[in-house]
């Protein structure tokens, strides 16, 4: 079964770099704008549930961008872990704390908005200045290097090989981090004793 994006992406591989087909460019801009519009709606919605659902929308758009950027595995993980697991946990907490009503909203006053807008624009300007920097030519891979790697060995093998060789220590440390986070979350979320006495947790 060939999905729509898979149907678009291989065409991009055949073209020389710099002259991508119109469909590819169109979808790239479409999902990028979709992500930004969803993110703007996310930060301006009063209801926490609506905000969370717009954030899910942003994450789906980002997953589409990852697929267009030759990161199919990361796109799948984005949908499963971020949009699927993390956002469901957020929605569960909103439900548990009964915050879904959004009484009066929680957006700060106009002064804060001006400060926040200035800080946001400053960060955008800063990042634009950084993207003008030149990188060493020796660092740059030949065009479509990653795409060819994925064509040769599949989408997961090029990620798995460095993950379990060069970055094995980081991978193992991550497992300890996750264990500590799970234990910490259980301890923090545990109900205190009925009579106000702290239990052994």
């Amino acid at each position: 079964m060939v999905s729509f994006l898979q149907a678009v992406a291989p065409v991009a591989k055949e073209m020389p770099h710099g002259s991508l087909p119109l469909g590819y460019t169109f979808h790239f801009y479409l999902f990028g704008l979709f992500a930004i519009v969803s993110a703007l709606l996310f930060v301006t919605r009063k209801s926490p549930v609506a905000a969370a659902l717009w954030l899910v929308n942003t994450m789906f758009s980002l997953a589409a961008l990852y697929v267009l950027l030759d990161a199919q595995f990361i796109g799948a993980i984005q949908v499963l872990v971020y949009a699927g697991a993390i956002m469901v946990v957020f929605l569960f907490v909103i439900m548990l704390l009964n915050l879904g009503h959004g009484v009066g909203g929680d957006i700060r006053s106009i002064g804060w908005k001006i400060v926040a807008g200035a800080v946001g624009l400053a960060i955008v300007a800063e990042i634009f200045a950084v993207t003008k920097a030149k990188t060493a030519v020796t660092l740059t891979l030949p065009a479509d290097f990653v795409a060819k790697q994925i064509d040769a060995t599949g989408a997961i093998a090029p990620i798995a090989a460095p993950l379990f060789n060069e970055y094995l220590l980081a991978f193992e440390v991550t497992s300890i981090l996750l264990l500590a986070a799970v234990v910490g979350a259980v301890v923090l979320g545990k109900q205190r004793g009925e009579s106000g006495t702290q239990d052994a947790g």
Partner: protein
Amino acid sequence: MLAEALFFSAALFAIGVFGVLIRRNAIIVFMCVELMLNAVNLSFVAFAEAYGVAGQVFVFFVMTVAAAEAAVGLAIIIALFRHRQTVDLTNINLLKG
């Protein structure tokens, strides 16, 4: 597509910062932090296309840390809510001088 991806990444990151500054609901502030992490992931994936697949490995680690952070952060928010009956950040000012 590197320049476009970096543009989208910068915009999303700035929107995340904007959200952290204008919202008072701790859960939404927390979701804005997740948005900023996602923006950085987009940069990593875009660079991975040009400079090698290691960038995608970093995205993997960022997602793991984000999952751990979400678990602990939400547990803290629940503990805070139990203590204060609110998640409004203006009411959580124990460290304010």
